[in-house]
């Protein structure tokens, strides 16, 4: 029997699941669109990855990360819940010990993580604007009628990237439309968008950070060769795109699951066959005081598993 460790990363756009073994080898991976339904997506993803997993692998630990990490931990039965910044850093440094900078661009957030000697020393995440993230590229690709998978190839064909304002997603879009109306070709516009995104990223999250090689570029957006080229051009070095760039957060979670379950000596993992279970949430407004907290209740079938959202702790409940 082989021991496997499950990592689940539920982000705004995608839900990624991986199982790794004791040697950090990726056994299986699943990449799904979250579509605003994290519970259902996780159930589907778990089922799918369970089908795919070789029969001799037994899950010995599970962890969740991403913006829906707490909710997901209740569904999966996680041994540890970790934020995605730490998870990404752990995955990258497991892969390449000497990595000094991580560029991660996901669906709605982008981050930079600075490591020295395998320890995170600084990080930043975009705060109030989603310009320069995957969702923005998605939108522009559909506006240009290019499948997002093809976006990078278009950019690579460009001869003279058009300069597009990248500070704000709305300004970028109108600037791009103006350039289209002036007759610039699509390839040059796409390449211009990639460069705008990189400029925005560097000015926003990258500002004031000491970017040293090796630089790892990960997250779903790293699939875009146009962006890889734009980063190389801007930074004057070659960024490394890891083989499993899209699921690094989940891999980091899986590594954490291994450590946590070893420490615990067992796992809380509920198994893959949970698609029959009816998970649901409901909420109510507490009338206890003027804060009027929105309290969320989480049910597994008819059993109340957890309650959160209250500031005073009056309603807080964790069955698991």
């Amino acid at each position, binding site marked *: 029997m082989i021991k496997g460790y499950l990592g689940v990363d539920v982000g705004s756009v995608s839900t990624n699941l991986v199982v790794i073994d004791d040697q950090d080898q990726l056994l299986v991976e699943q990449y799904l669109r979250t579509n605003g339904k994290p519970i259902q997506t996780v159930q589907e993803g778990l089922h799918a990855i369970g089908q795919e997993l070789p029969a001799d692998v037994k899950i010995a630990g599970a962890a969740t990360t991403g913006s829906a990490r707490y909710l997901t931990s209740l569904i999966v039965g996680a041994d540890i819940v970790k934020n995605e*910044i730490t998870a990404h850093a752990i995955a990258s440094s497991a892969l390449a010990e000497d990595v000094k900078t991580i560029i991660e661009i996901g669906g709605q957030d982008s981050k930079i993580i600075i490591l020295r000697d395998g320890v995170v020393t600084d990080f*930043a995440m975009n705060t109030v604007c989603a310009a320069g993230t995957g969702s923005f590229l998605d939108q522009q690709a559909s506006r240009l009628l290019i499948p997002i998978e093809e976006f990078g190839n278009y950019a690579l064909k460009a001869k003279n990237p058009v300069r597009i304002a990248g500070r704000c997603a709305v300004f970028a879009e109108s600037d791009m439309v103006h350039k289209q109306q002036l007759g610039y070709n699509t390839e040059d516009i796409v390449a211009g968008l990639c460069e705008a995104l990189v400029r925005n990223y560097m000015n926003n999250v990258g500002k004031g950070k000491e970017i040293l090689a090796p630089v790892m570029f990960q997250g779903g957006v790293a699939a875009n060769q146009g962006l890889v080229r734009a980063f190389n051009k801007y930074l004057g070095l070659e960024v490394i795109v890891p083989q499993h760039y899209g699921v690094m957060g989940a891999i980091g979670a899986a590594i954490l699951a291994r450590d946590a379950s070893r420490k615990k000596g067992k796992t809380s993992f509920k198994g893959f066959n949970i698609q029959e279970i009816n998970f649901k949430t409901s909420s109510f407004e507490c009338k206890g005081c003027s804060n009027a907290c929105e309290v969320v209740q989480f049910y597994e079938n008819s059993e109340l598993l957890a309650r959160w959202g209250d500031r005073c702790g009056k309603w*807080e409940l964790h069955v698991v």
Partner: protein
Amino acid sequence: MKISFPHMGYSYLALKWLVENTGHECIVPPEPSSRTLDLGVRHAPEFACIPFKILMGTYLEVAEKGAEVILTSGGMGPCRAGLYWVMHQYILDELNTGVKVIAFEPPLCDLKDFIKKLRWVRRTGGLSVKEFVQVLRITWEKIKAIDEVEILSHEIRPYETNRGETTRKLWQALEMLDKANNEAEIQDAMQEGLKLLRDVAQDRSRNPLKIGIIGEIYVVLEPAANHYIQIMLGEMGVQTDRSIYLTSYTRKNTIVNLEGDVFQIAKPYLGEAPIGGHGANSIGETILYARHGFDGVVQLAPFACIPEIVAKSIIPAVSKDYGIPVLTLFIDEQTGKAGVQTRLEAFVDLLEKRREVKAKRGIERLVI
């Protein structure tokens, strides 16, 4: 007169007492909520920062409740907040609220104006100078007592064994202070409140991280504007100290006070350039926290706040020189706290790891 003022943390309790005991009726500003924000955003200029929008919303809410006068602070220097009360007045007039904004400028900037406005508050309330001075004194005692219990709550929270207990006890303590009407009663209420907090069930074997909170005054002082960051961090097991308390200047148990002049401390990084707002403070305070052995600093900045943006671009140099990590959070309309939570959790992970590495190095050095 029906008088109101901006909501800033728990200070409203003391200001309410001041207004009522000056012979006016107090319209207590509600804690900023999503409704406050909605109102503020609807009527404020799009490019104004979040303190402007929250205050705008608050003013409209108190106007609905019948406030006639709003007392607030002015300000001078490069930060646009000094002009905010003028803009607020324009908008309140445009909306026909009939509310008058009275802004107190720093006394050193225009002493005459300051005295004139104070006199107006006193005379319309029908108080003698002597009575008014006494009311001001008690108000000040009340503010000090409020700060005192709040400071202790942030020290105790990371040790609490039942989440939320410290916060509930703090609320109880504040309620007692609310009812106190003279110096003796304030002292009693404060002592009892401090005892309530000390009696919270605690696990003293923990060794909490220490984080300093710096940044623009409104988002530092108003928990509803900063996602209750001190409570959030406290419940994650972190002790926090914030750079600004209304009574910072007079106390010795806060890191930032008159003892060390933050402007002087910030000077090597700024030269003579006045960057306005609390920008220079943010730089000086980062240094102070580093000197006092804090593990990290969180800078709170309203989105598009120029002084804090300038400070943010200088802070990496300070951070490097003094070896203290700084996390900047820009605050705008978002009410979802998940994003802030993620960043804070990652920051705490970073600080804990640093502590581990430092401890390990210390041991290695000892062995050698």
